[in-house]
């Protein structure tokens, strides 16, 4: 088992390295540079000064070497080009907790309701409860979150004045964005949970448990839940990883100082160090989440543990 974990860990590190390297070179291959609109009127010599200031006049391979050295030795993502004087580390440190708060609150709201809906729908399969829940989940999945965000903002904040329209600093500010974030999660979780639950319900061992006289509640909790939850873990853990990365549209609509907008804008403005910082952060989150899924699987499902032992 230790060998298995070590193997997974090594492959995790390798994947991370490949992602960083690939991103670095692809990013430099894309046409356009970080000279933004702000410097449109710069004469060529000023532009040259600007490029030299950020080391962009050197060959890409040299830049890559310098970047990686700085990253691995100092754990320094460098300085933003679009936001001069601000370190990527600083921007990430300030923005990640904000994005994560919305994400965590959103999931705290979305996951229990979603799973509950899924279980309910499975138990009332083919009844109106099932249809209503499935209709709600389908809508929650297919309607983009910014539509919910706009709706919530318009009705609850603007018309009824129950919450601030935008801003950051109080808990009230986080309610609407968290709801908008969580709604989508409800839909996905409900559908997955329903399928998984139904799958387990039809297994022979469930019938056997029912036959030996297990109470309805004990059956649901002890037998079905334990078995139905493992597929959910596969989608749950990566989702947990992505809560740190922020949501561009939600953060824009509610003026939340998270990192979502940097992720999108750094690409269009060719802010190379920012693109790298974001990519590295997100890929580490994601790769680590996948690693955790593997480990968790062993804990939840002994069959995985047994199979992998030989492998």
């Amino acid at each position, binding site marked *: 088992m230790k060998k298995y974990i070590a193997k997974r860990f090594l492959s995790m590190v390798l994947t991370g390295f490949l992602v960083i390297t690939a991103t670095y070179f692809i990013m430099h291959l*894309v*046409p*356009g*540079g*970080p*000279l933004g*609109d*702000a*410097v*449109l*009127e*710069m*004469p*060529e*010599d*000023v532009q040259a*000064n*600007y490029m*030299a*200031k950020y080391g962009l006049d050197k060959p890409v391979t040299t830049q890559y070497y310098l970047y990686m050295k700085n990253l691995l030795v100092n754990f320094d993502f460098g*300085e933003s080009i*679009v*936001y*001069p*004087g*601000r370190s990527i580390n600083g*921007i990430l440190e*300030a*923005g990640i907790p904000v994005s994560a708060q919305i994400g965590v609150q959103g999931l705290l709201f979305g996951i229990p309701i979603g799973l509950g809906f899924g279980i309910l729908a499975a138990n009332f399969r083919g009844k109106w409860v099932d249809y209503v829940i499935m209709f709600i989940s389908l809508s929650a999945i297919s309607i983009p979150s*910014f*539509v919910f*965000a*706009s*709706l919530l*903002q*318009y009705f609850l*904040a*603007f018309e009824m*004045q129950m919450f601030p*329209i*935008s*801003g*950051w*600093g109080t808990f009230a500010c986080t309610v609407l964005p968290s709801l908008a974030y969580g709604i989508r999660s409800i839909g996905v979780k409900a559908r997955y949970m329903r399928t998984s639950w139904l799958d387990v319900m039809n297994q022979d061992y469930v019938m056997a448990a029912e036959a030996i006289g297990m109470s309805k509640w004990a059956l649901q909790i002890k037998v079905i839940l334990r078995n139905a939850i493992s597929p959910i873990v596969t989608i749950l853990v990566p989702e947990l990883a992505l809560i740190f990365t922020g949501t*561009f*549209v939600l953060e*824009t*609509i*509610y*003026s*939340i*100082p*998270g990192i979502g*907008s940097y992720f999108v804008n750094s690409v*269009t*403005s*060719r802010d190379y160090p920012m693109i790298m910082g974001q990519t590295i952060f997100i890929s580490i989150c994601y790769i680590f989440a996948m690693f955790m899924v593997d480990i968790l699987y062993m804990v939840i499902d002994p069959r995985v543990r047994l199979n992998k032992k030989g492998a």
Partner: protein
Amino acid sequence: MLKFPVRSKFDFIYKIELLRERNKMNKKRLTAVLLAFALTLGGCGGDSSTTTSTPTSTSQSQVVNQDGGVDGSAGNYDDSGEVIPDAEQYMNYCLTSDPKVLDTTQTNTTTDLVVVANTVISLTRLQMFEGALTAMPYGAKSWDKSDDGMKYTFYLEEDAVWTDGVPVTAQQYVDAFQRILSPDVASPSATIINPIKNAEAVRLGEVDPSELGAKAIDDYTLEIELEYFVAYFMDLTYNPVFSPVRLDVIEQYGSSYGVEAENIIGCGAFTLDEWVHDSHLTLVKNPTYFQADDVLLEQINFKIIKDTNTIMAELYSGNVDRSSVSSVEWREKLIAADLHNYGDYVLGGTYMMILNTEYETNGVKIFSNEKIRQAISSAIDREQAVDFVANGLGIPAQGLIPSTISLDGSNYRELSGYVPMASHEAQDAKELFIEGLNELGVDPDPSKYSINFLVRSTSAADKDIAEYYYEVFKSTIGIKIDIQQVESAVGRDLTMAGDFGMTTVTYYSSTNDPNSLLSPWISSATGNYNHGWTSEAYDTAVATANSSADSSVRLENFMEAERLVVEEAALLIPIYHPMSSMMTAKYLYGFQSEASSFAPALFSTVFTSGR
């Protein structure tokens, strides 16, 4: 290169209809919500239409129509009719992005300047004086000009101090200029101070920074010698780059100067108290400001709100006191609520098309012919373009220079009485185009030609606009345009390489003088558009206008330059001058609205009454 298929004609007609309907219809709430989505979607892709050349000047100027005054009207008045300011004085203002760096030597973006300009004092400030926008004493209490206009001497305000008690001195202004020209700073504003003697040579490292034509004679006397005569030199002095800097403080913080509230020092009417990145900034009144007694506002809350729809909701709810309104729906809603004074202002800029004379299609350098370029201009219905492209917020262009620009204190457009676009509009686009093709000696059938149309933004709104032009050129001339939609960073590379047929851009004037919009097209200009057009006559006209102190000579030559580049050469096809619809809460007084088209808005005169 992405090329998008163009949708059918019906789509376009439908959109025009929809636009008209929208203007007329009295909408129900649901429509508003749906439109809110549309706006949100539009907002994601960035601001509609093209690139801004000089972002320092995106506020407002000339009043077209107005309901109530620019000033508030909800205030409390005493017996003599004087407005009584509120006991609690604060203003909520909105920024559409997080400032990048609050240092006058490092930035030229509107968002940064509106904050930083209120924390420093520039040499002069722009104000209405006897009916004209004039550079008025600020950091300098008076100044002299030599007879040949080549040397200015500024006598500085002796009471001005920095917040740490250090006096503001002439050397600090010189330090600012030298810092702007330094290769290490790579300031985007470096070219603004080009008229100062040796500025360019210092920037290129050819001479020592001490050779710069700006010198501190003593602590309170600043002498600026010019490299070449510029009639509008005083119009540069209210630009925030003409503000002092503290090199000792900058040295202390290094590259983090100006990026956090703690790492900034100021000497203006307000000081930066708090800066939470991407969320808000707070300016508070500076007690050490030399005119602190005249400042009523105690606090300015800048809220960073990127989404247009959210800004409107906050404006409506009174959480933002003043904002421009670009959506027709919100405008109507706000006017109906009657909580704001509104004014439509023509901005000091021009939305235009640029044609590449070297562009080759079907083996023909199609835009090398004047008549063909003029035909493109006459094909455009400017009134319709205002409705469709600018959402109604613009006035059809008469020429390159907008009606907001003055020449030595008088309105340039009125003074010249010249309408360059008139001759194009009188022509039949198709006939003119075919005439041009005949002159080139090529196939005279317009339908055989397809022309690259570069869209430098990936937003849906700009795609719709491109499709509008597709229909315009197809229905008037019969040519086809190939829409090429790219990210702005890619677009810049393409235009610089001359790899485009036609593209659109909005240029804003950085000074209140026609020169700012005319000089980018002289042959020695290293611009962002490799359009292949040069004209000696044009270069001479612009140079003559700029080197003369005689208003009539300047007028004559600017008119000639405008005629050459717009009417005759049709290199540039002005379409409209953008407008801004400003909504100001009725309790807000003292805005210097007219000035803010050419300089960042200064809030030291603002106060509230009856909030």
